[in-house]
């Protein structure tokens, strides 16, 4: 897919903040993920490289180094359960199991209709309100228990349906 002119303009608007264009790379990849389904298709790599005037391999290696950049498709809602020690002590494993069972998928998989994917994430910095889950890159859902999983997913399903009704 080609990046929209709007998205390219948004990336270019970040350039004046730094003495070198390359510094906008992480920001650019965040913007693209936000607007293009939460992951980075291979053909956006050369486009970003062109805007920042750096070799495509430099973009590729940054995309693969950082945990928040997804190089394969994720669900419309990507559920990440924190598996830091403080969350583990308060039942993170059982919480992740609850989401996996409810969705019938394992980390790295996407539900058939493309709505959900799941993964674990290293300490999110929510240890005093553990266990915690982050949906995509949103504000955290904190102080959870496995029993909360069905209601959380139900809300997200409703959101997805509303989004789809809007586009239709």
């Amino acid at each position, binding site marked *: 897919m080609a990046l929209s002119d709007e998205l390219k303009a948004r990336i270019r608007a970040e350039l004046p903040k730094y003495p070198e264009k390359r510094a906008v790379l*992480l920001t650019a990849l965040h913007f693209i993920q936000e607007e293009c389904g939460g992951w980075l298709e291979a053909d956006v790599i050369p486009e970003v490289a062109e805007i920042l005037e750096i070799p495509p391999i430099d973009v590729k290696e940054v995309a693969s180094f950082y*945990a928040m950049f997804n190089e394969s498709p994720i669900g419309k809602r990507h559920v990440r359960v924190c598996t830091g020690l403080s969350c583990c002590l308060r039942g993170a494993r059982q919480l992740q199991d609850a989401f996996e069972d409810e969705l019938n998928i394992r980390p790295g998989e996407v539900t058939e209709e493309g709505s959900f994917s799941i993964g674990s994430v290293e300490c999110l910095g929510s240890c005093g309100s553990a266990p915690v889950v982050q949906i995509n890159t949103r504000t955290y859902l904190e102080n959870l228990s496995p029993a909360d999983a069905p209601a959380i997913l139900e809300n997200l399903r409703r959101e997805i349906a509303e989004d789809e009704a809007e586009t239709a």
Partner: protein
Amino acid sequence: MEQPQLLLPEGDANYSAIADYKDHRGYEAAEATIGKTDPEEVVSVVKESGLRGRGGAGFGAGMKWSFLPKDGRRPRYIACNGDESEPGTFKDRQILERNPHKLIEGLLIAGWANTIDAAYIYLRGEYSGPYENLCRAIDEAYEAGYLGKKILGSDMDFDIYVHRGAGAYICGEETGLMESLEGRKGQPRKRPPFPAVSGLWKQPTLINNVETMAHVPVIVREGAKNFLSYGTEKSSGTTIFGISGDVMRPGAYELPFGMPLDEMINEVAGGVAPGRTIKAVIPGGTSMPVLTADQIKGLPMDHDSLQKAGSLLGTGAVIVMDDRQCMVRAALVIARFFRHESCGQCTQCREGTGWLYKLFSKIENGQGTLEDIDTVDEVANYMEGHTICGLADAASWGAGWFVRRFRDEFEAHVELKGCPFAETSFEV
């Protein structure tokens, strides 16, 4: 319990709006400083206050400031470390969510004191709520004339930019942070050259943690003596302790240094659940050596006391584990973290973190031998002190000390060919 609040608003209050911050003496220090004082004097006050870096290493902030060259080379930068990713740590987040102008004012004063042109706040990518709150506060500060050109009628131009990370613990290491900010993989650089001389884009760069900078306004406004009146002689002031794990009231608490660790856990965080006892406590994030219940009795939470006790204060992230929990599992979770977060640059770290994880998994699964337990110690020793940055040391301390302080539990796994705490412990 009445506690001094140098950083955070009282109770549940939130001073994110500039009007609320100013109602509580916000920007008074900046107004009295920018364009009106000798920058060297400001550096002296920070030095005298004894303020130590709050990012984990506890290095003297004023001392760090004085390392910046005096050769007139421009531009000069601040890289403010908000990558807060040390497991158990959630203190900078409190400032970003509840008192972001404190950080902005601290950066502004540090900018004046050190003739800085721009500050980049490197914020961990997952902190989307704090990011939005901080950006909004920065916009307010520009509107109010605290940022931008000719600040407060002086000749000072100063900008603050927020730079989002993307999920890599190693970017909290100061040279990894700079690599990442410049748009590369966060692989740490060799030192020398030190950032003060050759940092961001090879220019002089000051690197301080979010909390460190947020302390600056009160120090400058109330003086070094006031700050020294809190805490201990060599660990002055307050800090935000994050208490998590098996306690009744987990949370972030701003306290002066020096409170005994057992008192902090029992009085401030409500202690462990009724009928349970404390087994182990990590005092400063999972990079720091674990302590036994005996070791924490009456142990003052300050840099020197923790070091004497055989651990380190780190980020003040206290993780409590009660008598139900399995220490092999705890070591396994920590090793898993470091294996995931090693940047892969140095062999000792890349291979060693994997070895630790595999050895702990084997022992926890009941397939370990006594030799495996010794191998953990051997691997941990190979890792420590042999790499470009401190991640290998952290993995070695954080995971390795579980074996040294709870060896009987590791041996019990070997003997039983399984986990003796399978019925009661947390799951991994």
